[in-house]
């Protein structure tokens, strides 16, 4: 590699998220490869950095679909007009959604989709004459977006930090990870306590990711939890909203991850893979029972955003679905995933740093632990997540690691979410480079831990 090209704080007009982080300057991309101006090639194992480009970069069919629609009609406000891309995409999405889903409301992205889902669930109950239902219960260790309302859907002090005065006091339950609650029973008990604390008939919705992404990479609650959740929905009458912002559109080997769960949710949100990096678009899908509350009630669900259902993003959504179908990519994810997971597990088997490699489809997670007991969170001051990403980048690999340790539910982790179009060779290269990265960081960590002064523990 040549010297990588970074943009640093003094030389940009962008208000960077982290002022001390050097940002690799990406100039061009093709397939799963990102190129900087010096010609360095990075293997993109996390969909453009955020699990978005699920069919790779610079796909001519998608660029052309966007151009063609934009030339015809790019933007119109869907409070006044509709277009065939919006209508067609709604129909296509419903055809792919679980049975019983009958209506779609388009938005611009994941946070907006989740905000809309909260409003939709609340409005559903109000329409049905249960205005006391407003509260949401959700797993604490999750991510649903950076708006205040979506931050309120998590229970993470590290994420909330000083925005606490704005947050809605929703109720949260701990995750059922291997560390704390492998059976899911503890989470169900916590759910029962939350329902009781909220008070009878006051809960509007349970909100969760079927498979987590950034918050708990590749984690999914155990089967027993899902069954118990469905039982409680029947008993208490709240809705279940699934945040499929990441998992929708094939990421876990089915069109929606909901298909793999032992119950049907009431509301599904999706976003990233729907535009696949060629247009910002999200969608909220609901079951007919939810829709009927409006159809038989006020017949209005007003409030929307400027770009909701605009023809350009909807045409891109249609082209993405067509591309996924034409290339049988959801099937490819389903068929290829077990081998990918197994090869990542095998490659990391000897690393003392790795406690678990998990995931579904092309949404994989690595959970690290303190090698001294194979269980505790790594000391956060070691900055393992950060080091993994830096080491990976030095090896020409882009992954996404996080360290939500101070939230108390999990430690350092890495998310890997390759494009569905990655070739076998490219997938092997992801695994190989990741294994080298973890080995290098593992070595460093072991030596730091051997000299206790370095960690302060």
């Amino acid at each position: 590699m040549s010297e990588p090209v970074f943009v640093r704080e003094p030389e940009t007009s962008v208000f960077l998220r982290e002022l001390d982080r050097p940002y690799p300057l990406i100039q061009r991309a093709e397939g799963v490869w990102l190129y900087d101006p010096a010609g360095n090639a990075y293997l993109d194992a996390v969909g453009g950095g955020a699990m978005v480009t699920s069919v790779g970069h610079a796909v001519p069919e998608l660029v052309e679909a966007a151009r063609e629609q934009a030339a015809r009609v790019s933007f119109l406000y869907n409070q006044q007009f509709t277009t065939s891309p919006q209508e067609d995409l709604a129909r296509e999405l419903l055809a792919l959604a679980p049975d019983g889903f009958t209506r779609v409301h388009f938005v611009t992205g994941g946070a907006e989709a989740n905000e809309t889902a909260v409003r939709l669930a609340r409005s559903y109950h109000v329409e049905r004459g249960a205005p006391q239902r407003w509260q949401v219960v959700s797993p604490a260790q999750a991510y649903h977006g950076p708006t205040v309302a979506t931050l309120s859907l998590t229970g993470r002090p590290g994420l909330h930090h000083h925005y606490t005065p704005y947050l809605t006091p929703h109720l949260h339950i701990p995750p059922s990870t291997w560390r704390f609650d492998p059976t899911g029973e503890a989470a169900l008990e916590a759910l029962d306590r939350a329902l009781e604390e909220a008070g009878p008939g006051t809960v509007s919705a349970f909100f969760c990711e079927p498979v987590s992404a950034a918050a708990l990479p590749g984690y999914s609650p155990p089967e027993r939890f899902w069954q118990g959740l469905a039982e409680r929905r029947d008993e208490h009458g709240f809705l279940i909203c699934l945040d499929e912002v990441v998992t929708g559109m094939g990421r876990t080997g089915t069109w929606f991850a909901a298909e793999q769960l032992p119950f049907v949710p009431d509301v599904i949100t999706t976003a990233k893979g729907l535009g696949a990096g060629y247009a910002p678009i999200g969608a909220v899908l609901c079951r007919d029972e939810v829709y009927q509350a409006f159809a038989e009630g006020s017949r209005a669900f007003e409030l929307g955003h400027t770009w909701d259902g605009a023809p350009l993003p909807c045409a891109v959504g249609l082209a993405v679905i067509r591309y996924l179908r034409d290339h049988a990519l959801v099937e490819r994810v389903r068929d290829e995933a077990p081998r990918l997971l197994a090869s990542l597990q095998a490659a990391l088997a000897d690393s003392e740093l790795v406690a678990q490699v998990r995931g579904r489809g092309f949404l994989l997670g690595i959970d690290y632990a303190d090698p001294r007991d194979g269980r505790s969170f790594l000391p956060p001051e070691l900055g393992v997540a950060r080091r993994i990403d830096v080491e990976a980048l030095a090896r020409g690999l882009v992954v996404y690691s996080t360290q939500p340790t101070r939230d108390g539910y999990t430690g350092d982790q890495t998310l890997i979410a390759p494009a569905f179009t990655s070739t076998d060779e490219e997938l092997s290269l992801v695994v190989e480079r990741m294994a080298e990265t973890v080995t290098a960081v593992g070595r460093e960590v072991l030596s730091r831990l051997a000299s206790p002064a370095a960690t302060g523990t």
Partner: protein
Amino acid sequence: MTVHSKVLAPELNRRYPVVVRAEGVWIEDSAGRRYLDAMSGGSLAASLGHGRRDLVEAARRQAERLSYVHNERLTNPAQERLARELVAVAPEGFARVRFVTGGAEANELALRLARSYHVERGEPQRWQVISPAQAYHGPTLQTLALTGRPGLQRPFDPYLPSHLHIPPSTQRFDPSGEAALAALDDALAEAGAENVAAFFCEPVSAAALPAYSPPPRFWEGLAERREEHGFLVCFDEIVTGMGRTGSWFAADETPLLPDIVATAKGLGAGYAAIGAVLCRQHVYDAVAEGSRRLTLGHTWDGAPLSCAVGVAVLDALRSEGLVEHVRERGARLREELEEALAGIEIVREVRGRGFLLGVEYADPRDGESFLPPELGVARRIDDAALESDLVTLSTQPTHDGYAGDQSLFAPPFTSSDRELAEMVSRFAVAVHRVAGEVEDELAAASAPIEAGEPR
């Protein structure tokens, strides 16, 4: 909505024309009907008109090269360039830009930035926001909380933090702005001035109070209070940014320089969903000299595709002199609109600047009270306009207590003189027709309802 639509539409009883193409200020539906777009795409985004080959081409070129990377950990030349160019057209002293995908996101970020500014400077007790009640800042729960409109907030009140609001200084209630300043003082006292993070407002309103802007005395008084109490002033320029009012930002024409500006619609001009938050150096310094972090963002923040479109939009605005054009032509457009609506009894006021004009209606029996909401005047104006193949956007926030029926009139900057004349004349025909019907209906009705508190 078409019969078999699967879209969860905003209004289930409304018929939505199916649009098949659009060019310039013309929108064509599947039946071959052509509408004149006096609303820039319906929601003020398409400020450069439809079907612009240069913008479509800019998007294509960028998408072929690099459509998407996430700016949380990667950057791209288009983001870097648009940030530089936006800072260059922003009011003096603005130093940094953070991109988002739209207006609501921009306002949410502006609020988080204002809050962070105070926390970074060691004033963690500052969180409260004061804002005009009759406003619109977006449909997310936090942005709904920035307004004081029960009609908009219901039934989501349980989710909303309790911010404080002041009434608008409209002609009806407070033409001097003194009442709003008194209300601001009350709000500061109620919150405790040391707990206030920001004053949040639109410099010129759009949907909530079409083209209304507070009087100069209000701005001066606001600046004095900022000086005294140390809160920030955030401008929501989602609509007004990028030339809409005849200057790059409406802040250029306001007698106070805000600390933070949020903008969106005109930046992508209907060719990309993009918004931005800009801040002055001292706001940035609080973070730069503090934690050096302002994390949390959305998937599409600063994506190369959206930013490249933003760059092309700025190019078009500059090379075609459109901001200057809007300024000059806007003054005449307002006169033409006033003239065309003169003598219509339900028309109380035509206001606005640049290509952001508003028409306010009143009960013709006293020329002052709100029209009875059950007459549905706003809806009827839009329906009548649409029958004349004209797209307008009217609102009826009467239940909020601060304004009655109103229309927005906001054509694309690229509209020709002939097209503008045609828009004005079709609009006048629509208002005339509805006014005639309404006067007949009112002749048989009871006394006018007085403007007042929310109900």
